[in-house]
């Protein structure tokens, strides 16, 4: 009986979900993220050089990734509902808010380009923001300590803007996001080694 209910729910929820992602997939602007690669010359060329089939392939991949994330989410929601934990929604929101803030978006050295991991993290952010339409966020752009602080101030700004632009493309209104660059001035990890640097090159989200 329970299995059957699950199946029905899955079918009912997944099919519109699939339609939604498929229609979104066209809007999923890959070249837009390439725009934020640190190599400005690629900006114009990126959109023109990416072939149509390449775009389609990326969109398909994207749709599949989105789909699996979505299914996972529905599954979790269903489990929660069926286990009768709906009373704990308040606590869940707080937990998810903390999770939302604690997950940083990471960048490679001297770059504001969004890796696939960074994009996945941003998709989770977008999803959370869709589910919490009244929350505005500050996106902080940070750098590791290497390089000069003047340049890192600009690079941090670029990283924050890069994350913001990606979220705008996923349908989050600009008005809900503010960016602040901290350059290299506010490291998450104070050590002076590769792993600390990797964790300091980040976009950090704070809810307003």
């Amino acid at each position, binding site marked *: 009986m329970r299995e059957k209910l699950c199946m029905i729910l899955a079918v009912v929820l997944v099919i519109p979900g699939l339609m939604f992602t498929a229609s979104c997939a066209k809007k999923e602007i890959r070249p837009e993220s390439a725009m934020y690669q640190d190599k400005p010359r690629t900006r114009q060329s990126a959109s023109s050089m990416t072939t149509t089939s390449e775009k389609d392939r990326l969109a398909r991949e994207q749709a599949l990734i989105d789909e699996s994330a979505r299914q996972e989410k529905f599954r979790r929601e269903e489990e929660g509902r069926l286990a009768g934990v709906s009373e704990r929604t308040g606590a869940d929101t707080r937990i998810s808010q903390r999770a939302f803030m604690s997950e940083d978006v990471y960048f490679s050295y001297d770059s504001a380009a969004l890796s696939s991991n960074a994009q996945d993290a941003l998709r989770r952010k977008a999803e959370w923001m869709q589910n919490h339409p009244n929350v505005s966020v500050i996106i902080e752009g940070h750098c590791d300590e290497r390089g000069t*602080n003047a*340049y890192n*101030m*600009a690079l941090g700004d670029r990283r924050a*803007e890069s994350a913001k632009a990606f979220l705008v493309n996923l349908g989050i209104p600009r008005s809900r996001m503010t960016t602040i*660059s901290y350059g290299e001035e506010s490291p998450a990890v104070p050590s002076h080694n590769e792993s600390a640097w990797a964790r300091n090159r980040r976009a950090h989200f704070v809810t307003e």
Partner: protein
Amino acid sequence: MTKSCVKIIFLITLLSFLIWPPSGLAKRDRVVISDPSLQKIPIAIPLFKVQPHLMDVSMKTSDFCSETLDFTGYFKLLDRGSFLAAPREIDITGSTINFKNWTAVGAELMITGSVQVNNDLIEMELRLFDTFKGQMLVGKKYKGWITDHQRMIRRFCSEVIYYLTGSQGIFDSKIAFVSNGSGNKEIYICDFDGQNTKRFTHNNAITLFPAWSSNGKWLAYTSYKKGKPDIYIRHLKENRGFVINRKGINSTPEWVPGKFSLAATLSYEGDQEIYLLTGKGKKIKKLTNKWGIDTSPAWSPDGRKMAFVSNRSGTPQIHVKHIGSGSVERLTFQGRYNTQPSWSPKGDKIAYSARGKSGRYNICTIGFDGGGPTRLTRTGDNESPSWSPDGSMIAFSSTRQGASRIYVMTAYGTDQRRLLALRGEQTNPKWSPGGVD
């Protein structure tokens, strides 16, 4: 007594006691400070003559004179222990000095001094001699409050440097820098030699990138006082100023030489570009217009060219914009990370911070035509070069001894030494123009 009163007395005495103009004498060959193979000039500074009970004053004043001149890197200070004549026997006016005693110990120049102290007043006579020719080159007499004795000696040293090099020197300049000793990065100001450090900002927030206006009256800087990086423009003496607080970053201000306007990096249009702004922060025009990072403006002394950092070619490199024609050319090609340009006040060179193959950062200089990049530092990470107002020295920050500190060196990388011993870490030094008090 008020400070202005002191100043008036000081200046009056200066004017009325300007003695023995050296114009009648054949001038010594100028020290060519643009000569990288500069030989240091051996100079003897015997203890100044004082009233017998004031030997500590003699020590203090003659040592301060030695340290001040030594700072420039032009001189080799001779050891007083080697002097053949006892200080008491030296005739400070020079008329009976046996100059052979001084050339014998290797001195080419010699400074004599006498100090008279009466209650709170001090009187000083200082003279510079050419020991080979047996001639006096500079002679000055100063009178003022005893608290002004360092200013008097610095004034005399400026005369010495002016006589020898034809340029005003650095002894009336200051250095602004960032220190986190209070727990936050704040701006401090010290004398050119690291003395008399005073805290300038009390923002209790990250404060960076100090920049002096070319008349030395204004300081612009970036601060997170209101939670985001905004530019504050503050008068150094009067309690007034302006704020540039557009959306995004407001950073790396740099004053246009001789004008009440500045260039700064703003990103309110979504891209980091350099803008020309009035001293009150009103936009005049956009100076760069290229997708990607453009930051860290540095003006040529005539204000006709602006060096800046751009990653338009894929990595951060120094570029130069010709303001008249609007054309931009790339200046640095070696290495993948060249930032923080600082244009020499003499106009010929640009200092910058370069990442080498080792991954360390070093101060380099390059001709404004791109000629001969030269590395000046070797150990630690070295950043934020800033030229002294006469172009003879460069201040910078370095981690060579662990924490980041402010160092100075000559324009050729010689005589590198730490300027300050303060709590916390110090960064972003910015040398003032001359004539700041």
